[in-house]
């Protein structure tokens, strides 16, 4: 009898529902924990999300990536190398202290310091000096005309005195001007943000946001479906997107993201130095099938470094379509024949063989296996090696690879997508690509402030790069958001921004 009572108590405990709260709490799920809450040091996607909610930048990029006023109310280029911002009055930090130009000066001065080791420092090196003209006016002095600068000035502004005092601890005890303040952070588990009563756009309707760190993509999705979460976004398993797209219980929205997946061809490899071989490989890459079958349409076929949905995108780029016959012709013209009848093309005793490498990722592995099979059909011997990220990227950076499957993210400006990657000697030009005309165009694009002129410059560069195939652009990444229908006013943003939560409402 006593035993039975014990069982009854235990069962009741197990089935007891969670406590009810009168507050509006939005429960979100992210795949990784933020490494830091200091916007200057943010290097992962979760840190970026926190930056959007806890801080404000001078500007914010809207869903079309056009800079809009945030802490700055207006700005103008007083000369090609000087940018002046008028700042918003009456803004306070979470600790009650007033925001002014000194905070902007401090934020950017520390950011460009070499020893500060900010991961995105390279984007800000053309900033020579930041000066406070008055408490509500700040001037950026550039070392040369730098067109993308406004795209990068959405970085969170930190309070100079607090950040200076806390030093490295500021990353754990952030103080910003944003719509939400950090209430609690259980490392690796949960982040709790509470609405800021004094936010300059008005207190958010959502009282609290609880972010749960759930590394496994499947479990995160199950949590949303079972009602344990209200909001998740990419990464989402592509097959589940197909399944849930038309679900009546969830709002599922997609848009093009600011990234692409591609094959990086190492031009130091003698076999890949022949542009006809590279063209043949491009003709052998069935991007449509990869997109539809392996990614369930979540990522769309790529063509160039210009991303759909952005101002710089143009439909006019011509690519090497999937055409195995043309590929065979090109390879034959280049002198590749199967002289020893072993099923593999060869030339001067050298077989046409490549090692395809990538990091451990189920979708990426499938892509390489697919390509291996496709390329084998025309006599290319491709082997696939998949290994963990740190080793893989170390090899790529060292140029120790042949064909690597990688991606680029956060490409909120064409300069960011091209300068380091395609310019001769660029830091991210792992495959040693070099074209003098492209160099000219990239230099011009970086300095050209007229958007239409800039668009033409990058269109020309994009066509050249696609023609010469240092990269085979496989897929333009898609961005997926899934949330409870009770969340209204959430804006799907190609950069994955959650800033719209400052004005969104949530009721279920």
């Amino acid at each position, binding site marked *: 009898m006593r035993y039975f009572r014990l069982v009854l108590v235990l069962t009741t405990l*197990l089935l007891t529902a969670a406590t009810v709260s009168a507050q509006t709490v939005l429960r979100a799920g992210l795949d990784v924990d933020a*490494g830091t809450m200091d916007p200057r040091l943010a290097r992962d996607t979760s840190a970026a999300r926190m930056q959007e909610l806890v801080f404000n930048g001078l500007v914010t990029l809207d869903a079309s990536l056009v800079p809009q006023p945030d802490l700055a109310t207006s700005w103008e280029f007083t000369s090609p190398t000087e940018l002046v911002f008028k700042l918003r009055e009456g803004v306070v930090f979470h600790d009650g202290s007033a925001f002014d130009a000194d905070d902007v000066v401090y934020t950017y001065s520390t950011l460009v310091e070499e020893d500060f080791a900010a*991961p995105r420092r*390279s984007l800000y090196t053309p900033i020579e000096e930041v000066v406070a003209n008055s408490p509500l006016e700040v001037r950026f002095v550039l070392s040369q005309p730098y067109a993308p600068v406004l795209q990068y000035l959405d970085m969170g502004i930190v309070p100079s005195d607090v950040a200076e005092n806390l030093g490295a601890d500021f990353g754990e005890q952030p103080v910003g001007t944003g719509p939400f303040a950090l209430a609690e952070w259980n490392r690796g588990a949960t982040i709790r943000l509470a609405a800021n009563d004094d936010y300059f756009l008005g207190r958010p309707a959502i009282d609290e946001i609880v972010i749960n760190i759930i590394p496994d993509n499947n479990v995160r999705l199950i949590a949303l479906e079972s009602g344990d979460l209200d909001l998740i976004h990419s990464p989402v398993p592509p097959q589940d997107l197909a399944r849930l797209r038309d679900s009546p219980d969830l709002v599922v929205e997609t848009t093009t993201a600011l990234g692409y997946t591609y094959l990086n061809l190492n031009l130091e490899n003698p076999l890949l130095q022949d542009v006809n071989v590279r063209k043949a490989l491009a003709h052998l890459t069935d991007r449509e099938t990869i997109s539809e079958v392996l990614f369930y349409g979540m990522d769309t076929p790529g063509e160039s470094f210009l991303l759909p949905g952005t101002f710089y995108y143009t439909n006019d780029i011509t690519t090497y379509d999937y055409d195995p016959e043309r590929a065979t012709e090109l390879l034959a013209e280049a002198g590749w024949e199967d002289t020893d009848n072993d099923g593999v093309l060869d030339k001067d005793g050298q077989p046409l063989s490549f090692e395809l490498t990538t990091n451990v990722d189920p979708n990426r592995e499938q892509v390489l296996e697919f390509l291996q099979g496709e390329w084998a059909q025309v006599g290319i011997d491709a082997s696939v090696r998949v290994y963990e990220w740190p080793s893989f990227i170390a090899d790529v*950076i060292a140029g120790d690879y042949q064909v690597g499957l990688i991606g*680029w993210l956060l490409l909120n400006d064409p300069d*960011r997508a091209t300068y380091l990657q395609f310019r001769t000697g660029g830091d991210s030009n792992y495959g040693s690509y070099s074209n003098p005309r492209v160099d000219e165009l990239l230099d011009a694009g970086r300095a050209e402030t007229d958007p239409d002129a800039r668009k033409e410059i990058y269109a020309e560069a994009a066509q050249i790069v696609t023609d010469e195939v240092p990269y085979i652009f496989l897929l333009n990444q898609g961005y997926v958001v899934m949330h409870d229908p009770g969340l209204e006013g959430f804006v799907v943003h190609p950069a994955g921004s959650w800033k719209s939560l400052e004005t969104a409402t949530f009721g279920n």
Partner: protein
Amino acid sequence: MFIPVVLGVLTIVFITLRSVPGDPAAIFVGPEGSAADRLRVTQALGLDRPLPVQYGIYVWRAVQGDFGRSIFLRTEVSQLIRDTFPATLELAVLALIATVLIAVPLGMLAAVKANTAIDFVATLIALLGVSMPIFWFGVLSILLFSLEFGWLPSFGRGPGLFPAISSGDIGMVGQALRHAFLPSLTLAITSIALVARLVRSSMLEILGLDYVRTARAKGAGERRVVLRHAFRNALLSVITVLGLQFGTLLGGAVVTEIIFAWPGLGRLIVNAISQRDFPLIQGSVIFVAVMISAINLLVDLSYAWINPKIRYV
């Protein structure tokens, strides 16, 4: 024995990390960084110094309790371990309890009813437990109990059992148990299988021994024979295995922690490895080695208590 083990582990981890490919500076700086940036970070992290120098500095600081700061989490390693270890311990303890509650009776039943249908079923359960991949079982249990039935939470530790118990809030304890149920069961399935089979074979062996026959001849009831005489003596090998299993549970909770988003040390170590966060990897692995050594020591010491015939000179 303790110190050499710890020092050995420290040395092996230290050398291995610096020998395998993968550079924390490159990962830290990111794909948009330059070689100059990477060099600067390498120097800031002290990774450009000669290996013996790095080793010496590390050991010198470690014996003073300073395990450095995580490169990517920027928090003190000892703090991170302190924050995450209780969660892993909780999971391992609950899995151990689940093992004892399920495997011991299961094994005893199988032994007592040897070669009957009951024995067959029990052995089958044991076999399934050993064969099922943790990942598969874990995700399946979430799909079933969280999504399908809606009985249990789909992820996370909730308030945590240890904090809940110390707060005295029954509701909180209930919450914590609900969160811990599936993860601890998932973690325990392999142990359950192992221990059940061990209990069964131990018991069978003992039940065939002379003194058991004597007990029966003396007229002792079957229950008394099984529990008092046979089981007591099987206890020694069972305790040994449970103790060693606890170490395994402690170290093997990684997959369970990742699936259930359980904020434990295992998950912390895996993330650290994938980023080559040297200080965090070193500190955590040393900590786990110390823990397991301590557990093994306790298991050894418990022999004397269980079996008076064994005494350490």
